[in-house]
């Protein structure tokens, strides 16, 4: 009963915020992960142009539902829709910004970057097959590091999330056992561990729980000063979670050949590539109900690609490479008005 009233209140609130948004505002809804940067861009954009953005960070699933219900001009999701799903709904999809997902640990006597893990070992930890920090598999990767015989406490997301989608996608790619037993999804049946709500929940739980390991967006690891682990990537090189490593993952990806840019940036090749990188995506209709609204939204995204890069880096997001932005501009030509004329005109 309590939940029903919450749900009712939430949907009421959603209806009101949508209907009270000014006509000149761009409306969107979806993923929580890019919310801080969208908010920052929106603030700067409003100062420059007077046009505001009304973005509800209700989660990727909610964003897809809202755009399909046509209550918003754009939807945002961390887990990309496939080409066929996009065609079915008449949507186009493009990546807006990227972020890194970082394994964070809380082990006595271990500082950030001291421990190195590889994909199969990480999968075994999250499968519950490795239960102690001084397990041979971890020791082998970390000769010279003194690991205590402490129990490993796995911390994962309890809510559905794009972060989980990308993390489990990585584990599925590097571990056949994970792929078979657990799989890739925004929420999965975790074999072991504690669930915590949101990136901040996982960050807090890892900080509180001795012997724990979790995964969070890079920004949360950095801001909470959590101890991160370095990773061994597909090329067998050890990489630290840094801007250049996330960028490295994007460089090697096949953006052009993937319908809807539905590239999952995990386990990418490249000596410098961080293995768990993720892009977040925007969804829009090819034949929008309101041409004006879609034109406004596209202008905002164009501005964000052109001028938002520095702001993104300040918040530990990675801007899209110029080559990808060029491809996105091509994709935008698919958004047309009833006369078949592209809505977005390049200057």
């Amino acid at each position, binding site marked *: 009963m309590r*939940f029903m009233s919450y749900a009712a209140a939430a949907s009421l609130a959603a209806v009101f915020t949508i209907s009270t948004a000014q006509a000149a505002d761009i409306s969107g809804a979806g993923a929580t992960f890019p919310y801080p940067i969208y908010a920052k861009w929106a603030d700067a954009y409003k100062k420059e142009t007077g046009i505001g953005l009304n973005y509800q960070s209700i989660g990727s699933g909610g964003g897809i539902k809202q755009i399909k219900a046509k209550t918003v001009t754009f939807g945002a999701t961390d887990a990309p829709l496939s080409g066929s799903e996009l065609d079915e709904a008449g949507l186009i999809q493009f990546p807006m910004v990227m972020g890194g997902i970082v394994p964070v640990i809380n082990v006595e006597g271990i500082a950030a970057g001291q421990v190195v893990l590889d994909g199969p070992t990480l999968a075994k930890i999250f499968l519950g097959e490795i239960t102690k920090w001084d397990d041979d598999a971890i020791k082998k990767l970390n000769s010279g590091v003194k690991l205590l015989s402490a129990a490993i406490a796995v911390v994962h997301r309890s809510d559905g999330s794009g972060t989980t989608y990308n993390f489990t996608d990585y584990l599925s790619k590097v571990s056949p056992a994970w792929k078979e037993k657990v799989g890739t999804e925004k929420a999965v049946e975790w074999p072991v561990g504690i*669930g915590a709500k949101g990136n901040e*929940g996982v960050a807090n739980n890892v900080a509180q729980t001795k012997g724990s390991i979790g995964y969070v967006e890079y920004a949360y690891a950095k801001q909470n000063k959590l101890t991160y682990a370095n990773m061994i990537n597909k090329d067998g090189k050890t990489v630290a979670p840094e801007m250049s490593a996330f960028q490295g993952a994007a460089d090697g990806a096949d953006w052009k050949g993937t319908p809807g840019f539905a590239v999952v940036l995990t386990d990418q090749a490249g000596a410098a590539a961080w293995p768990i990188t993720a892009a977040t995506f925007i969804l829009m209709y090819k034949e929008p109900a309101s041409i004006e609204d879609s034109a406004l939204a596209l202008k905002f995204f164009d501005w964000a690609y052109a001028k938002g890069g520095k702001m993104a880096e300040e918040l530990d997001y990675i801007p899209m490479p110029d080559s990808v932005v060029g491809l996105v501009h091509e994709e935008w030509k698919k958004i047309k008005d009833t006369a078949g004329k592209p809505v977005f005109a390049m200057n």
Partner: protein
Amino acid sequence: MDAAVAGRGIGLVHDQAKLAKTLRRFRTGDAIFKWFTLTSAVTVLVLLAGVMIALLHGSLPAWRAFGFSFFTSESWNPVTEKFGALPAIYGTLLTSFIAMFIGVPISLGIAIFLTEISPERLRRPIGIAIELLAGIPSIIYGIWGLFIFAPWLQVHVQPLMIDTFANIPVLNQLFAGPPYGIGMLTAGLILAVMVLPLVTSITREVFDTVPPVLKEAAYGIGCTRWEVMRRVVIPYTRVGIIGGMMLGLGRALGETMAVTFVIGNAHRIVPSILAPGTTISASIANEFTEAVGELYTSSLVALGLILFFITFVVLALARFMLMRLEMKAGK
């Protein structure tokens, strides 16, 4: 005064039409009042029926797909879309049981102390402290539980429990490690703190309704304080005490935010009460926003329906217990 009444009477008699009008006005007023109260009462029924229908309708796909196995399955797998409610039901009942097991005796202790034993000048401060405890929002309990209570349990209490019970059968299963800090026990303990003010304030109030003459008579024939409580106060007030307990249980069953913070949110059934688990309301709060696909959403709604029924059954049981007690007392 007589003259005044008579005067009014004569005035009314002289003005029959006016009297009829006044009476008519009273009657309409009464009718409106009656309809207003009736509508208010019916609204509750309509709302209840509406919630029921919405939950039933929303959960239909889940019932169709899983049938009765929804109650018995331990699996909660969004990837393969196989859902079962057993871990959530188990967690809901277990945490509420821990909360009542610890909360009720303490509440009764506080209430007895405040009404019978405490010196007059201590009553108000303790009473106010308990009321303040009731006013703390549940999210604060959750944050406190996660940041202060759980780490303290993990470092100081849980290792002690695990070591102490390590060689005792059954108990070593119940208190098996590793110590996470958060888990079923922590959630139960936080819930105990949350039901405490509710149960205390109600039992305290019903204790105050015991006529002093009864207690004085009991003391007069040489009863000890314990005997007065056991033989006079508690039998006299048992209906109220059970009512208070049921209100507390209702809160424990439905509490969402604080539990979500400290229970560990894992859809698993493990014998150890130190292990992470989940409750119905915590699952819904966690997963509803990002639940993609009809079956996932519908399974969460089905969980809501089950919670609705559990609450209903608890209330019905409480009524039943009260009826039996009253019949026994009547004999």
